[in-house]
């Protein structure tokens, strides 16, 4: 009889842990400008290699190079810079508010600002995002009122969600921002359904679905890719690969696949992989996918490669599971710094103007926060009513809920 060695279980692990030196030496980054730009009606078969590469526009010298360059005018670029900086300032303020006990919880998108901001700028009014909790940039780039966002964070009397939802779980139909669910992944397939509806009705609106690297493991991720593959609706399937899912490194979600973009190939979906810290690349690729969807050529799957610089949330301490300085070793840099440098190279921006804008934005955020706080903070000052709890469970309150509300005395 043949002898077989005992089997053993493989469990993937990151190459470094707290105490080790950060190591991205195995992380291959193609040169800016090296990935081709196909036509929007390209078939999946013709661009399979793009799922293994990384589309980049900005090179080390801050120049925009290659076939994906030249899409963005000065005005758009300057606006984008502003939105990214505003997002970062907003995050800093809200993070601090959480520390000060003004709310229960907060989640930053530090280091990932380019993705949501540039993508939103490529969409049109009427399109609908199905976001996760780390796409506040979508709202800011849509110029959604800051005070309204903050009131949601504070769960105060100005909260349009009536205090029902945890902080950061925004919802705004008008700003094309679908209600965030705390359950990971669920919105991904809903976006596909929304896009199917748009196609069924002969509309021209498109949906954009968002998910994190960790949550690609969810069942709804699979359902979304499957239904998108079958019915080819106008949907963009975004994966924000920020390398971490709370304490879990991306290897537990990718398994043996090299990239997340390749997962889409198994469904015959067009897949692209993009430098998510490169504002110009995000914008150019988003525009491409938007046009593709709107011309009825179907879904595009996009892996945005980035890094979660901050903690997972205000409840998390990343020093427990990754080297403290890993974010500074991240080879793709900071999206704001990179766009700033590019704009200086373009000759439309300067260090001084940058400092000035930063100060301006901090004032704007501070003023907004003050106004928001005048409507209360969590547990302090004006608050949403307890009645809120019983309303909107159904369109009309059924007898049993009326009884319960009366029992509660509200």
């Amino acid at each position: 009889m043949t002898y077989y060695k005992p089997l053993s279980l493989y469990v993937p692990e990151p190459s470094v842990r707290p105490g080790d030196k950060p190591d991205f030496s195995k992380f291959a980054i193609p040169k800016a400008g090296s990935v081709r730009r196909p036509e929007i009606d390209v078939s999946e078969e013709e661009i399979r290699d793009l799922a293994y590469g990384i589309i980049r526009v900005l090179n080390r010298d801050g120049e925009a190079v290659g076939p994906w360059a030249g899409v963005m005018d000065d005005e758009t670029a300057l606006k984008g810079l502003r939105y990214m900086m505003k997002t970062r300032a907003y995050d800093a303020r809200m993070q601090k508010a959480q520390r000060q006990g003004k709310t229960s919880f907060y989640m930053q998108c530090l280091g990932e600002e380019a993705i949501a901001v540039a993508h939103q700028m490529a969409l049109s009014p009427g399109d609908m995002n199905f976001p996760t909790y780390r796409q506040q940039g979508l709202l800011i780039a849509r110029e959604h009122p800051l005070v309204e966002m903050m009131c949601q964070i504070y769960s105060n009397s100005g909260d349009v969600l009536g205090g029902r939802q945890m902080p950061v779980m925004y919802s705004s139909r008008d700003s094309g921002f679908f209600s965030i669910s705390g359950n990971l992944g669920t919105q991904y397939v809903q976006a596909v359904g929304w896009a199917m509806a748009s196609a069924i009705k002969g509309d021209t609106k498109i949906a954009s679905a968002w998910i994190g690297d960790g949550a690609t493991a969810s069942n709804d991720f699979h359902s979304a890719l499957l239904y998108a593959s079958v019915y080819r609706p106008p949907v963009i399937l975004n994966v924000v690969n920020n390398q971490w899912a709370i304490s879990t490194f991306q290897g537990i979600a990718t398994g043996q696949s090299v990239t997340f973009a390749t997962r889409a190939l198994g469904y015959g979906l067009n897949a692209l992989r993009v430098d998510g810290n490169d504002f110009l690349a995000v914008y150019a690729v988003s525009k491409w996918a938007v046009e593709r969807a709107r011309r009825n050529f179907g879904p595009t799957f996009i892996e945005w490669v980035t890094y979660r610089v901050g903690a997972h949330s205000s409840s998390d301490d990343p020093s427990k599971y990754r080297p403290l300085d890993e974010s500074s070793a991240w080879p793709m840099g900071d999206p704001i710094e990179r766009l700033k440098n590019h704009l200086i190279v373009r000759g439309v921006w300067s260090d001084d103007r940058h400092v000035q804008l930063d100060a301006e934005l901090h004032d704007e955020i501070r003023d907004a926060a003050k106004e928001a706080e005048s409507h209360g903070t969590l547990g302090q000052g004006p608050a949403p009513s307890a009645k809120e709890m019983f309303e909107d469970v159904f369109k009309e309150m059924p007898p049993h809920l009326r009884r319960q509300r009366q029992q509660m005395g509200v």
Partner: protein
Amino acid sequence: MARMNMIEAIRDAMDVKLGQDDDVVVFGEDVGYFGGVFRCTDGLQRKYGKSRVFDTPINESGIVGVAVGMGAYGLRPIAEVQFADYVYPAYDQIVSEAARLRHRSHGQFTSPITIRMPCGGGIFGGQTHSQTPEALFTHVAGLKTVLPSNPYDAKGLLIASIEDDDPVIFFEPKRLYNGPFDGHHDRPVTPWSKHALGDVPEGHYVVPLGEAAIRREGSDVTVLAYGTMVFVAQAAAAETGIDAEIIDLRTLLPLDLDRIEASVKKTGRCLIVHEATFTSGYGAELSALVQETCFYHLEAPIERVTGWDTPYPHAQEWDYFPGPARVGAGLKRVMEA
């Protein structure tokens, strides 16, 4: 007015709504070209086209997930789950998403969706084609749960469900598709064409959600039943000679508690019957509510006659099913207590 069985009535409800409202779409496994394994959507694709009536992959969470997205867009999707036993993969999309979307978005987004599914035993379907998991939905805030017992109600309730702006779980007791089966599995079933409730008006009408129907007036004991058990209870009442007032709940949530309360206060006794497992079944909620509202009128303990706390067996399905003998014995216990 036409004679219809329950399949035809359900199909007709969808036909009426597909015809009236462009926002109505119908989909699920095998519902398109083929018309559904129980034929409930037969002919609808031909009539309304592939983009309004279509087949889906075998992925129930996806079926409900896309329905939620379509609902948020503004459509009124009707999703079929092939058997209630296969709804569990979709459970998260139903309870975490469809049920809570209106609330969590403060009414910005809603889920006006209807999820149809055949339920109940009696066709030798074993543990995976026989369940009636209504209690798993009545516990979830934000869902309505409907379970008709006859063609007239099925059509009227289904139209009401489709028109409802909140998510509705619509159970179809498959053993009743062809006739008012009363649990006597060894006897032929009368077809709906010979039953008054097989008279189904043409066109649009609704049976409002939340209104129970009294199927038999009586003074001895109130029987709370729904679906197949309505006819089992009628058989049991006839066979025992007990003058039972039989209430067909039709909608489990919202519940017509007023009608229940009035009846139990009149009879002073109550028997609850359902096919699902006993523990934490919907009968528990009914029992608790009746006790809470009618305590001082009760002359005997409220009893529950239900399926046993076991998986639904294949060979022993008539031992599991709470047929007329067991319901009759329950009636007697309640009367003699």
